[in-house]
């Protein structure tokens, strides 16, 4: 009896002595959500048995956690370029397991276009989703935006927006379908699109992403309007953004949330040195 009690007490003392350094070690262990290696979708399909939707959802959540972690790091001025290739691979795997998973399409659309500039890939994925989610107006809405804004394929854009309009019954998409037939008002349309995305977003990391981009595009729009006013008054295009500020057409001076500088191209188009993305993202292959 004595022996049992004493050995128990020794173990307890050791436990107390150990638990503090043990938990400190775990707490200080850097939190890195790695995307890691995911086996082929065919293998996953077989192993997932009747939990394909669950496996798909967990792949999407994995990507989301990873991305959320990076956004948090960027807040603390630690720039880690996201592994977009793995992110895309995981999301493509997710929709093969569950072709109805909206989160996957939505998230892929978020980064495949602005950040990675894989417009064709994004639209192929959306086309695949449209075969299944036949009721969903978001997918043609996204595809329409990609076609017009990035790929300048206005015929395709009009077709997608037509479909989005029919499915949603809302006038917004129909309006866009008409407007995308001509190559004007791109910035305003980007603002409409981003506002729609930002409004429905609950994930803080993604919402912040949209808000930043939206701010940048609102600034661009402000410069464009100032340019128009300048041309109406002076009869010529302004040479620089600073000219607009100095002569009182643009107040306060525009600020690019991505840290770039706005400037005017020879034809009066407003562009920014940041290209609407943070510096660390630019070099990602």
């Amino acid at each position, binding site marked *: 009896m004595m022996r049992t009690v004493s050995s128990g007490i020794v173990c307890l003392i050791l436990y107390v002595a150990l638990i503090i350094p043990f938990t400190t070690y775990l707490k200080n262990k850097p939190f890195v959500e790695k995307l890691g290696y995911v086996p082929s979708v065919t293998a996953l*399909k*077989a192993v997932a048995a*009747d939990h394909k939707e*669950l496996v798909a959802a967990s792949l*999407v959540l994995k990507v989301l956690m990873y991305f959320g972690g990076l956004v948090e790091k960027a807040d603390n001025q630690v720039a880690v370029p996201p592994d977009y290739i793995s992110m895309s691979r995981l999301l493509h795997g997710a929709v093969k397991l569950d072709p109805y998973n909206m*989160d996957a399409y939505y998230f892929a659309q978020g980064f495949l276009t602005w950040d990675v500039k894989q417009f064709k890939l994004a639209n192929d994925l959306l086309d695949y989703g449209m075969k299944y989610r036949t009721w969903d107006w978001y997918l043609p809405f996204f595809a329409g935006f990609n076609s017009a804004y990035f790929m300048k394929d206005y015929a395709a854009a009009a077709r997608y927006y037509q479909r989005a309009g029919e499915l949603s019954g809302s006038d917004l998409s129909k309006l866009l379908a008409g407007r995308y037939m001509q190559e004007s008002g791109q910035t305003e349309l980007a603002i409409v699109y981003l506002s729609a995305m930002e409004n429905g977003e609950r994930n803080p990391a993604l919402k912040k992403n949209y808000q930043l981009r939206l701010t940048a595009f609102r600034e661009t729009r402000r410069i464009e309007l100032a340019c128009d006013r300048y041309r109406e008054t002076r009869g010529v295009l302004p040479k620089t953004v600073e000219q607009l500020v100095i002569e009182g057409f643009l107040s306060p001076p525009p600020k690019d949330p991505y840290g770039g500088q706005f400037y005017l191209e020879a034809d009066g188009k407003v562009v920014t040195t940041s290209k609407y993305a943070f510096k660390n993202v630019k070099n990602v292959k």
Partner: protein
Amino acid sequence: MTTIIRITLKGIFRDRVFQGIMVTAGAFLLIPVIASLSMRQVTELSLTLSLSLISFILLLLSVFLGGTSLWKDIERRYTFSVLGLPISRQSYMLGRFGGVALFVLLAAAVLGAAAFAVVTYSSALYPPDRPIVWSTMAICILFDAMKYILLIAVAFLFSTVSTSFFLPVFGTIATFLAGGVTQQVYEFVNSPASKALSPFVKLLATGLYYILPNFGAFDLKVNAIYGLPLPANGLFLSVAYFVVYVGLLLSVAAAIFARREMR
């Protein structure tokens, strides 16, 4: 036979299996929190998680209850005293099967009710784009239960030829995994992509496709999660397949059990 069914059910409750399920079902409470991580489909995700949890619990139940029920009786020599009574071996075995199957149905009903509550809660917090089709969800859970009852019949068949619980338990798990992919393998074998395969492998795969249980037919999760319409004809065929296949398995199991030597 009804007495055996009753005794089986009582035995399962006495083993505190139901309490075990209830503890595991505590995971339902976490589902709304996890589902809220979704960006665009909170309700769909909570449906996915609920249905997967139900399916997982039922799988454990059918493998372990189905795989150990007969073996335990023989191991503990209960069969000697029971079979001394005026009761045929076949009806004894069928009674045991009936008891376990009934318990799985009961568990599916209780877990289904919990899932309904969870999904109602999630959809109230984050209204879904598409209305939830409750009847499809109920049918999905019922078909899930049917799938696992079929699996219990497989476990009983293994039990009748085995002297330990290894074959019933691992054999049942293997059958479950194989039965889930037969449809995919069959489609692959009959697609142009399988040109390089030898005709023997193709023949073997096709043979297994017709022999092994096909669990793919009972998986209606996608329909329940996204509110897709259910094919009435397909449901009818699946029910008929279930009845015939379970009947076949139990007939073979009963024939083997009747001839089995028990020492």
